[in-house]
């Protein structure tokens, strides 16, 4: 069973075997709980621990920022991360593994929604307390969550459908402008749109509606591409969508009532962490269900062989259309959230650079996999923040990394892996006979 060179989950490399055995029985809930505790501990003693280790303040992003700016402080930051995150989480996880395993086993008999919600609450709580330390953390976290949505939605087209779409910045800008226009029109006293129409109290209620509307605008835009593109096969979509992206960009540059090239600012500050988190969860949930549904399987069939799929009674054109509009919708929602997080958008935000970023996240993480999108978005965002002090060289290192990944794993890091919530939250090692 032990083969040294293969890295598949069934027979892992030997050197990690001990580690896996040691950590293997910790269920997800225990991990999350450990995270929560470690974050709470950080809130209490983070400052003094940082001082003890000779750091000026709490390392904001796991010491990633310090690593590049002041390499001398690196050992301190490493020790901080090791003590506060790694050790605490592993320790707590190991200690609580048994009770949580029992609990997970118990919960598996309940409707799946309850344990999932519990996990999400713990996850959110740890994120919340983590982001509480500084505004910078909160912004980074929000942008990362939004990036997950974007990556996932592009993965539907580029991974699950196997086409190459370049229009994601376009959809994003449609959603961003759509949602911001509505919110600014109704709730903000603005130079462009005049006084607020509705009282500000209603803002949070309207915000989801505005986001959904933004998403629908994006989906309508996608319809414009989808109708001509899916008549023919081949790389057609890539070009049409590229042209579409440029059209949308210059459209917004010319729409003076939306600020033109100067951009639109003053979005109400409604995209707080819980909102973004909830939308991200909904997005992952819906998309994961979509790709695992009959439609998603049909989509995979279309990707692998369109003719064969058609012969197997898959309505290829409809499948592709639905998937494309669906992806565009989520890109639009993510765009709306993005606009309200950054609270300033201009057409240049949604150009080729953004396209390269999203594509990089999709292909870095892995095609055809929800895990992959999450991994890609999180790691590239973290890496981007980490390399920020290097200024220009950031845009040499990240592309180089991506080229290497493309050469050695052409479909990305975690490609073709199914995201099964049930498997994720189940107890990790069957507890001794009960139930």
């Amino acid at each position: 069973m032990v083969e040294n060179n293969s890295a598949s989950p069934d027979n892992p490399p030997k050197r990690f075997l001990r580690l896996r055995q040691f950590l293997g029985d910790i269920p997800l809930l225990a991990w999350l709980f450990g995270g929560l505790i470690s974050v709470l501990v950080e809130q209490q003693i983070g400052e003094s621990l940082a001082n003890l280790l000779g750091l000026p303040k709490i390392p904001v992003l796991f010491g990633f920022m310090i690593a590049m700016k002041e390499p001398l402080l690196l050992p301190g930051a490493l020790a901080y991360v090791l003590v506060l995150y790694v050790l605490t989480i592993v320790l707590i996880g190991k200690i609580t593994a048994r009770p949580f395993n029992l609990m997970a086993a118990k919960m598996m008999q309940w409707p799946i929604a309850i344990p999932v919600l519990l996990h999400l609450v713990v996850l959110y709580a740890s994120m919340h307390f983590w982001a509480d330390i500084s505004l910078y953390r909160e912004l980074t976290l929000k942008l990362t969550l939004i990036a997950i949505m974007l990556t996932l939605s592009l993965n539907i087209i580029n991974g699950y459908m196997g086409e190459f779409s370049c229009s994601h910045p376009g959809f994003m800008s449609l959603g961003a402008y759509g949602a911001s226009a509505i919110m600014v029109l109704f709730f903000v006293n603005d130079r462009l749109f005049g006084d607020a129409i509705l009282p500000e109290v209603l803002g949070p209620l309207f915000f989801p509606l505005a986001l959904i509307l933004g998403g629908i605008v994006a989906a309508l835009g996608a319809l414009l591409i989808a109708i001509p593109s899916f008549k023919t096969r081949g790389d057609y979509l890539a070009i049409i969508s590229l042209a579409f992206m440029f059209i949308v960009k210059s459209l917004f540059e010319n729409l003076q009532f939306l600020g033109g090239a100067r951009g639109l600012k003053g979005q109400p500050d409604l995209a707080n962490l819980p909102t973004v988190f909830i939308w991200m969860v909904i997005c992952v949930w819906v998309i994961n269900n979509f790709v695992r549904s009959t439609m998603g399987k049909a989509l995979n069939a279309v990707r692998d062989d369109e003719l064969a799929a058609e012969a197997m009674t898959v309505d290829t054109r409809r499948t592709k259309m639905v998937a494309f509009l669906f992806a565009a919708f989520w890109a639009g929602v993510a765009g709306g959230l993005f606009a309200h997080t950054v609270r300033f958008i201009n057409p240049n935000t949604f150009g080729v650079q953004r396209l390269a970023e999203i594509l990089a996240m999709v292909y870095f993480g892995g095609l055809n996999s929800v895990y992959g999108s999450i991994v890609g978005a999180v790691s590239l965002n973290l890496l981007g923040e980490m390399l920020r002090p290097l200024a220009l060289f950031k845009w040499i290192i990240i592309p180089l990394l991506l080229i290497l990944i493309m050469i050695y794993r052409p479909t990305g890091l975690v490609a073709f892996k199914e995201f099964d919530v049930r498997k994720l939250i189940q107890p990790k090692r069957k507890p001794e006979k009960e139930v």
Partner: protein
Amino acid sequence: MQLFLQNLINALQWGSFYALIALGYSMVYGILMLFNFAHGDIFMVGAYIGFGVATGLTALAAMGALALPNWVILVLTILISMFLTSFVGMLVERIGYRPLREAPRASAAITGLMIGIILETGNLAILGAERIRFPSLIKSTTYDLGGVFVTNKKIMIVVVSLVLMLALNEFIRRTRWGMAMRAMAFDYVVIPLMGVPLNTIASLTFALGSGLAAAAGIMFAIAYPVLDPYIGIIYGWKAFVAAILGGRGSVKGACLAGFLLGFIEIFVGAYMPSSVRDLIAYSIILLILVFRPHGFFGEPHSAKLRL
């Protein structure tokens, strides 16, 4: 009418840049069936290499080491830069595309995109963010043809582009290498089995495309003598769309579509506010593609991104 003719001449000049860049995209697509997203940046690199060569040569001439008239320097600049830039193209192929020949084509597109970003950023890192003035090698003289003003630069640019396009056409039609390229475009799976080396032909294709892009870059720099690292993004992507419009893999089509794009942009800019130029240009292209999905001279492919 004078305005029209004036714009026509401007459009010819403008279109020749696009046509030359589009050729590179189109040839690579024709042979390897992939989008070379780094090509726009090779155009940029070509312009910068041209800048380096031109500055070097004029400095030599000024020192008296090289007593050459300016037009010889110009011709030398173009030739040397084309030669040097074709190595850049070959390098891009070697690093970014050859290791991925068996991989999904989308992955190769991503490496191309990333190499493009590296070229841009590398340029920024090496030369800084200031724009660079291209040395003026030929003195601009303006001819008045019945109210229409033509500069010698414009004539030179259009003539050189046309000569290069014709030369390329002859190369592809008449030489053995050209024949190998055409064969490879026909089927790059079977033809290598007939003894035609795929890698050599791919390198050749990239070299040719990059050389043409370098020529476009230098002439662009002569017409608009301010260079910045982002010209590759701005014009490269447009030329890419033009290449597709011409029909993937069609040399004739790429030239034609490049000129068409030039015409559209110049005439839209002449009669409407310039901010809507991109909007209208791309909308027209999109419309044409809706009705002619394979472009002007493209063959319907059943190709799909292999995954």
